[in-house]
């Protein structure tokens, strides 16, 4: 049994449309976790021994404690770390923003690193891996982050670094 070509094409088109719709609905409506940006444990990429001290439902955002962005020492030390370790990739087509977001636990240890990348117009892209791998490794190499407290109890919190990249070089590190 054979189908006429126009019917096959129409069926394929219908299949494509249905697939897109399903994916869109999943992304925008049904996949909210507890909070926007929550990072679930991924056993293939995350450290097995990393401990969330106060439970997943108690992980805060860094700004929830009102102390602003806090760094292991001062931000100047973090800037020096990247300045000394990052080797700029000589290219003029690597521009935009790279965010590395992660969880800092009650002991100041970090894990669950995730990367988000965009061009200067905020469109999602993928940077040259020579850039992202370096940024990720340097970030992972920072041994301890600031321990933050709520009511004198050390908490787990989300923190991130945003790297502004211009021609393969870091021009700013935020926040």
């Amino acid at each position: 049994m054979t189908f006429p070509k126009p019917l096959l094409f129409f069926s394929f088109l219908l299949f494509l449309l249905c697939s897109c719709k399903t994916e869109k609905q999943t992304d925008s409506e049904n996949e909210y976790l507890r909070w926007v940006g929550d990072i679930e444990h991924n056993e293939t990429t995350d450290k097995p021994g990393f401990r969330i001290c106060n439970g997943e439902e108690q992980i805060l955002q860094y700004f929830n404690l009102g102390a602003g962005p806090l760094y292991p020492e001062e931000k100047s030390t973090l800037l020096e770390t990247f300045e000394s370790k990052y080797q700029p990739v000589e290219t003029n087509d690597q521009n935009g923003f790279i965010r590395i977001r992660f969880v800092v636990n009650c002991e100041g240890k970090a894990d669950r690193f995730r990367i988000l990348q965009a061009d200067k117009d905020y469109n999602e892209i993928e940077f040259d891996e020579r850039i992202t791998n370096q940024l990720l490794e340097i970030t992972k190499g920072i041994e301890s982050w600031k321990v933050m407290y709520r009511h004198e109890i050390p908490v787990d919190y989300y923190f991130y670094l945003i790297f502004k990249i211009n021609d393969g070089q870091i021009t700013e590190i935020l926040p």
Partner: protein
Amino acid sequence: MKKLYLLLLLIPFSGTYAQPNCEAYKYLGDMVKYEACKKAMEIKGHYQFSKEYQTILDEAIKIDPTFDYPYWAKSVAYLKSGDFVTWKKLIDKAVALNPKERLGYRGWCRYQFFRDYEGAIRDIEKLDSLVTYDIGQSQNGTYHLNIAKGLCYKAIGEKEKAINIIEEQIKLNEAEDFIGAYDYLHLGVLYLETNDPEKALAAFKNQTEHNEVAENQYYSALAYKALQNQDEYKTGLQRAKKLYLEGNKLSDPYSSPMDKIFLKDIEVELEAAGN
């Protein structure tokens, strides 16, 4: 009289950050927007990062996809979590639907969270071209949007333009007796960076009277250093260190403000001063 009621109903729309007055839509006969607005107001009591908050706003958007408020409200959590991709998609929708109310916010956020100087300038200047009234303050109230625009021009190297913009806005702020928390400091730093330490010191003195912070004394010290006044240079640095350790310094709950210094900066300079 009808016009007066209408004016009173519309007043809540005038602030970028105010919640919408749903009754105004009802009064204007836009029942779809009224229903969407009522739905959106169910976010009250939910944390803006939460599933519940986001889901309610999705439902409001379903009722009226042309209502800017839920897109804006949804975007905030993405902004604060540094998700520039999702934030930008949502805030762009809000801006497209209501540019006069949302452009200033988007411009400020581009600056505050992503140091997207060119984008912030574009948004603030676009807003300025669309309205005849004052374009207003940054979301956090720290700066008039023109001061923020001046800081963006400074960041892209156009310092003379930045000075002109900030000087002009400070004059207006002084006339209104509504000076931003760090206006004089930023102006003083710009003077210092363009080799005018005397004018810098005058601005720093104004900052001292208005709101003293470690940065103000630190940059004052550098101005005195440029004027070869060694005593004031050292004294300024000592004051800066004291203020810094007391916690009187530039701060922002989400980011590191422009012209912020670190303790190490003061200590390096103190060592250079021979202390």
